[in-house]
């Protein structure tokens, strides 16, 4: 019986040790039960669009037919763009729009279409300021108030009619519209329309022009399909991403992505912004994550493609 008893005691001791081991080890190895509520409240995973792709990688996203459309642009176009960029930048940062426009009136004869674009841009924003001024409740919002005050300062003294007396404004407007890729394609053929859209996408600083060109390129299937994978085929999603990309690219080319830029001030007067945030972060806070991420990916791809030729702002002065 003694050996049997010893065996039994050993078995009991072993079981005891196993029990103790279970007490110490299992809690450390079991997955920690988290309330599921943590999952939806945590931010959605952001895509890895942060790294700038090399140009070769950006080009690799294009099909051969697309790559042909994205061939390098000639230098003359870049020269013209540099002057546009500077005038646009002056307006974007000018403390007085009226004074800035007065100083660049030579554009009226030099390039009426571009002059109209500048005027129209300022007019739209200053009209918006007047409209917002008619809504006193906005002034009670500290996140709008600062922007409204800034808009009032910049728009003081601006009157559209001061710059258009005796002018064929409708003619300017038509000239401006004729420069849009779709209009160019209608007038000069598809290849010319494609070239204009690519040129705008590469060098334009105007978010509206950028958006119109990217929209054209998308509809012509001249943007890499891979960029849309996370967005899906919805037209409204694509439009949103194109608008985001246009804003990001514009502010990057402007060299100012902060809230000193006229368009950013105007947007903040409209929707309210925390002035402590930089513009890209602000944009992120104002958009559904998928739209922002897709817009950012498109903007980064576009900037990389633009770097295959020197940017207008990097060129020496005439």
């Amino acid at each position: 019986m003694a050996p049997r008893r010893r065996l039994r005691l050993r078995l009991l001791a072993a079981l005891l040790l196993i029990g103790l081991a279970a007490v110490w080890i299992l809690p450390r190895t079991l997955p920690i039960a988290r309330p599921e509520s943590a999952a939806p409240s945590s931010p959605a995973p952001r895509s890895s669009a942060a790294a700038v792709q090399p140009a070769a990688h950006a080009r690799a996203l294009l099909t051969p037919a697309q790559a042909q459309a994205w061939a390098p642009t000639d230098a003359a176009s870049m020269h013209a763009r540099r002057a546009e960029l500077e005038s646009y930048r002056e307006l974007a940062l000018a403390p007085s729009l009226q004074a800035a426009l007065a100083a660049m009136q030579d554009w009226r004869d030099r390039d009426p279409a571009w002059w109209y674009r500048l005027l129209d841009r300022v007019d739209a924003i200053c009209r918006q300021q007047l409209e917002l001024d008619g809504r006193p409740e906005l002034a009670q919002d500290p996140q709008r108030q600062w922007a409204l005050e800034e808009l009032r300062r910049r728009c003081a003294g601006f009157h559209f009619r001061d710059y258009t007396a005796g002018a064929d404004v409708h003619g300017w407007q038509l000239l401006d519209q004729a420069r849009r890729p779709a209009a160019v394609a209608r007038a000069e053929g598809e290849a010319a329309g494609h070239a204009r859209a690519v040129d705008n996408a590469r060098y334009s600083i105007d978010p509206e022009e950028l958006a119109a060109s990217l929209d054209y390129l998308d509809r012509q299937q001249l943007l890499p399909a891979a960029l849309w994978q996370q967005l899906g085929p919805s037209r409204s999603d694509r439009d949103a991403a194109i608008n985001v990309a246009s804003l990001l690219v514009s502010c990057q080319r402007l060299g100012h992505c902060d809230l000193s830029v006229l368009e950013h001030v105007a947007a903040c007067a409209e929707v309210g912004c925390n002035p402590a945030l930089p513009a890209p972060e602000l944009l992120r806070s104002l958009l559904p994550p998928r739209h922002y991420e897709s817009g950012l990916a498109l903007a980064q791809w576009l900037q990389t493609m633009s770097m295959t030729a020197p940017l207008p702002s990097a060129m020496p002065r005439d």
Partner: protein
Amino acid sequence: MSAQRLAQGRAVAWSGLLLILAIIALSMTLGPGSGPRPPAAHQLDANNSSDGASHDTSAGSAGSTQAIAAAGPVTSPRPSAPVEAPDPFRQSLRAVLIGAEPAREVLAAEAMWGETDPRTLRLRDRLDEACRAVVLLRLDGSTAGDPYRDWARRELEARCRDWPEPSLYAPTEDTRSPVLDAAPDAAAAAQALALLRHSQDEGELLKAWLVAMRAGAIAQEELFVDGRRLLPTESEELARHALVWLQCQRQGACGPDSLYVLRLCALGGCRPGSHLLEAYEQVLSPREFQAVRAIHDWLLRWRHADA
């Protein structure tokens, strides 16, 4: 013989000791929270609500900004589940929200309460609202092949199969008479606050929210820590989301099978299987989502302040 008995007795004692140790080990291993897993925020159901079923529209507990401010910190109030008698309306609403045949439920409600009964109208509104998304998508020219919308649209189409196509007209603040924009008086504000505390009707709650906002009866500095202020039009859209969140919790209809979620995802696009909060995170901007959460938390706090 006695020695053998002694040995057997020792063995039994050891076995008993081991059993006790095993029980202790088991209980320690599983821990104190070893019961059913806590419900996720997006899965909180009717148990999470201590809202009474009454529709007390009196201004008895006349609220004020101070009263709201004193309602307590924004935490996640999870009061213990009250024992409620089965409520036929809530059962019908839940069946409309997550059942496979919502049209049938609405027709049954019509037969039970009559076509113009407020309960029937509420059920009808919920279904109309969801089915309107299908019409909107069709008019928008949206086609199949969108992984973020297709799953929700297909399910909505199936649920709306036996339901007449709803009108696209759904009045919002923008389309209402400007006369309504006049700031409500103190009595109207107090009544709105009372409704916000007690009403269960989404439409009624929304109107009460807007009245209270216009009257300045809800201190926005209490709502938003970042100092923003909502305009009435923004407030309506965001409050609508917050009320949907509140109602889905109450009805246990925050999952991917809920009409609330299906509508949101069919229109805005979400990953298949998203729950309400996950859908909001995808469809709304972070700023909007923060605002919805702030309004939702305020409503919960306000409704539980006197619970």
